[in-house]
């Protein structure tokens, strides 16, 4: 076979591109010019035009619709599975130490104090079976901002959709749901929550469930204390954190690190009476009755917001507690 002249070799890529409708700028004129003079390349050009036609037919050939549908069906089911397992998280600094926030498609599933550690390995998420964790920036960033506002006292509500799947049982979920309904600035007891969910003898189990609360701060287990007013436990043995969170809401605790209790004398009391009246702590023996049946409230605004009326005997409206 005769060797192609150099000029034909050089123009070949352009010739092929032009013939197959894929020319780079300026190529057309060069190719046109060349094949006017070169019969062999004119033949090549025609050949590539024909090949382009065959490729076009290939492009238009339909794929078997049933195999596309089958692949899609498989995808939908695998995607649903992934969505149920995928958890995105981020670790960030806060005044309470490093905190990890994680969320699934359904909502926030974990808020975790990491203490001095900052790595994912310190999180219970790294040991959770059946989940796929992935670090995520933007989505968690907004949650982070809101949490910091909350800790500064600039925000009272974290209206986050929650995913309670990391709760260990239905009982734990029920405890968390009851706890989530305790409003900002109010305090009740483990026994109070046990009564609320219809398991009045399960006080210890309630305490245990809150010990494993996967969503501290958001599900405000810091608002649950002992019937006597003792802060008892929090996030392991970090009662100091509980004290700080309550202080943000206007509830002060006094005492030592190991034995601190809320100052009932500075809080309004509500004993679920039929008249829906709230009282001063000095009203009868109310301040000596166990917390739980009695809910403590940080402010009159909160009592108003809950639809409560001032007690007609002690008149908290006329004698408000000093802040």
């Amino acid at each position: 076979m005769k060797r192609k002249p150099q000029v034909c070799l050089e123009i070949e890529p352009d010739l092929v591109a032009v013939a197959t409708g894929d020319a780079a700028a300026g190529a057309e004129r060069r190719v046109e010019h060349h094949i006017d003079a070169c019969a062999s390349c004119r033949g090549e050009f025609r050949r590539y035009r024909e090949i382009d036609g065959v490729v076009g037919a290939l492009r238009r050939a339909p794929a078997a619709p049933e195999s596309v549908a089958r692949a899609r069906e498989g995808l939908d089911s695998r995607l649903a599975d992934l969505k149920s397992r995928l958890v995105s998280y981020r670790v960030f600094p806060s005044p309470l130490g490093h905190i990890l926030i994680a969320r699934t498609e359904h909502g926030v599933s974990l808020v975790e104090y990491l203490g001095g550690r900052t790595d994912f390995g310190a999180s219970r998420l790294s040991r959770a079976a059946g989940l796929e964790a992935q670090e995520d920036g933007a989505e968690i960033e907004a949650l982070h901002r809101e949490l910091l506002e909350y800790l500064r006292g600039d925000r009272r509500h974290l209206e986050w959709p929650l995913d309670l799947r990391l709760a260990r049982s239905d009982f734990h979920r029920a405890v968390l749901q009851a706890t989530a309904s305790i409003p900002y600035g109010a305090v009740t007891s483990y026994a109070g929550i046990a009564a609320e969910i219809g398991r009045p003898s399960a006080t210890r189990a309630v305490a245990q469930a809150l010990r494993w609360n996967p969503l501290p701060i958001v599900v405000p287990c810091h608002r649950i204390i002992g019937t006597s007013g003792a802060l008892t436990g929090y996030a392991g043995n970090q009662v100091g954190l509980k004290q700080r969170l309550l202080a943000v809401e206007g509830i002060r605790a006094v005492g030592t690190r190991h034995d601190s209790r809320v100052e009932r004398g500075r809080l309004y009391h509500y004993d679920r009476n039929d008249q829906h009246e709230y009282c001063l702590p000095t009203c009868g023996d109310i301040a000596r009755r166990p917390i739980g049946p009695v809910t403590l409230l940080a402010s009159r605004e909160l009592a108003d917001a809950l639809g409560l009326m001032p007690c007609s005997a002690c008149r908290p409206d006329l004698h408000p507690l000093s802040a």
Partner: protein
Amino acid sequence: MMGAQPFETIVGAHHAEIYRYLRRVTSRATEAEDLSQETFLRAYRAYRTLGPDANVRAWLFAIATNLSRNHFRSEKRRRVAHLAVSAESREADPEGPEDEARLGEVRTLVEVTVHGLPLKQRLAFIMRKIHDIDYEAIGRSLDCSAESARAHVFQALRKIRLSLNGHELPPGASPTNMERPR
């Protein structure tokens, strides 16, 4: 932030095309099924980090291409795929009028040649000529420049041209402003 539209919309808009792409690349329905699913699972994991102006289609092609390259890292798999398409395509030859039969035969030859191409040439050729992906995006998918992507397609076409030596082809049908019948 989550991408501009729900991920299901992305699946609805692009799944069939990505599947077809992979079906051509892999030649076996089960492999294409698996790789197309894997493509969208990967895409879902990364979707929320995708910028609002991203070209979703080119991005999905890049993921699918990447997965294919990993899949075919073993040369053996590639050979098996090549043999499979040769057999499969022969069965698929259409019967009918002579022209159609001839076109069918030629198409099969092209398909077999494409499947025998080195992987990068094959991927570049299918992306460019079947799915009309631009050279910049093909280059990004294949970790090479747009120029190299163009060169891959050129080499692919040359090999197809050689494989069709001695075969009569139907006249070219695609539009170009360079009709030169003389």
